[in-house]
């Protein structure tokens, strides 16, 4: 490996603003992104740097041996916060990161504690395929006896019903599994009736 390249390295510490549960903004420094100032590299924006860092973290999140470290770095909070970003790519990567690490019991509890289910449900309406697919899987993984009231709420089940009819095989597969393995038949029935009774084109009677 050409170590000589490293003499051009300039450490770029990317700071993410994180709002904690008490509403205070605190800085979360992630010293993971390193940039080169050699002429070969075109200058890139902070947004791109953030995307790279987030992608790396999301990939780290695939490996359980990193979970303790990621928790220490408060990356779970970071992922949850990125879900409400305007940048679609950041949302996609953050959702992927959550999908990767949410099966671990400690992480799962942390995400549920932090009211993570709500922003994840919102991701179901994203136009980004990966985001949606990650969100469906994450909801499945996050379902426990306590959380299922939230993760399999009626609007979610209804959404999954629609997804299960999608031409997108990945999405329909996952939605089918959600309906079959995580919802009870009455739940599915209720959602089905809801969509049937949605009067399309018929105005509601005025009282």
């Amino acid at each position, binding site marked *: 490996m050409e170590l000589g390249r490293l003499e051009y390295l300039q450490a770029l510490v990317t700071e993410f603003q994180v709002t904690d549960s008490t509403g205070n903004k605190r800085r979360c420094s992630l010293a993971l992104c390193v940039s*080169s100032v050699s002429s070969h590299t075109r200058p890139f924006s902070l947004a791109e740097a953030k995307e790279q860092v987030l992608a790396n973290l999301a990939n780290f999140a695939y490996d359980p041996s990193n979970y303790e470290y990621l928790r220490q770095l408060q990356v779970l909070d970071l992922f949850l916060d990125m879900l409400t970003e305007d940048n679609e790519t950041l949302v996609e990567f953050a959702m992927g990161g959550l999908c990767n690490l949410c099966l671990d019991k400690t992480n799962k509890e942390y995400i549920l504690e932090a009211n993570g289910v709500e922003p994840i449900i919102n991701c179901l309406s994203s136009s980004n395929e990966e985001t949606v697919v990650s969100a469906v899987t994450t909801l499945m993984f996050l379902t426990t006896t306590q959380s299922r009231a939230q993760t399999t709420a009626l609007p979610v089940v209804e959404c999954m019903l629609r997804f299960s009819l999608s031409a997108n095989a990945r999405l329909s597969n996952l939605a089918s599994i959600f309906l079959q393995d995580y919802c009870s038949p009455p739940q599915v029935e209720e959602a089905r009736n809801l969509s049937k009774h949605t009067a399309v084109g018929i105005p509601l009677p005025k009282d």
Partner: protein
Amino acid sequence: KMAAGSSGGPGAPCRHHAQLGACESRAKYREGWRPRAVKVYTINLESRYLLIQGVPALGVMKELVEQFALYGAIEEYHALDEYPAEQFTEVYLIKFQKLQCARVAKKKMDERSFFGSLLHVCYAPEFETVQETREKLQDRRKYIAKATNQRDCFVLKKVEGPKKTLSKNSEHDCPWSTSGSSVASSWDPSCFTGSPGVSHNSAYPSGNQNQSLLTSPRYDNSCAEISGYFGQNTSLTPSVHPGGHTPPASLMQQRMVPACNGIDRFMPRTTHLQERKRKREEGNKFSLIGTSEDNTEVVIGPQLPEIPKVDMDDESLNTSATLIRNKLKEVADSVSTSVEKPESSSAKRLVKQRRRI
């Protein structure tokens, strides 16, 4: 409003098949010689199915499949005539028996020259059946549970897996299918929470414990290389394994235990410094000869990428780097210990012979 779908069933070009534009802004020391796109891999993206584009239309399907079979047993393969392909190239679908074999095969064969043409290999999860996707997610669940010593699972109803899940030696043994007695036949939700050692553990067959431990690292790249190597022993020619069995190789499992803690995957997947250097040196001669080099590499043992020992001029970066380096060293040392044993015993034998003379 939901525009996440793509028209057409499996076989239609999907967005995740497209090669993303290479990332030009990545730091030079992380780049290697091959530009890599920024991408996040989740269990949804990965698949036993691989899509191979750019195969030259020279009637080389047999050679192609033989090449991929080196990484593990292949269940199915066929050309995809409907898939759009560049002129003079064909597209193939290859289905591996195991996900980790597909992972290694993709890593090694992507962007490889094959009969003069550059292959593009990607996962094709859209070819999975619902059951295959379900099993994929279940496997991921089991892996995490073992890797983190947890037994927390949500069971809504008894999940019907394929019949082979009931056999002791099967890797697909589903924890909740064996705890049938505690899962009601109706959809009564039951959730096993709490630390290991509580009642639900007894439902988990104890005979499985060793098996589980040994198979848990299979998501690790170096383990996958070993299993891929043994996979080659059992199927040199592409053959269909209906139902699929685990290769017997207890030897394989022994070798997997010391080497695999999943540690070397701490490195982001977009950084494989040593791996790329090696590939660069192999160059074009890969297409017909390179496989033996791969075999040699695997026989010696899992080669973890060498980390350049550099002061990155930043305390926290250096801390991370040192942490990674130490763990890798730890793992590498434990591997070399297990390999050295047979050598030392033969050396002893040699000494005895000399005394007689």
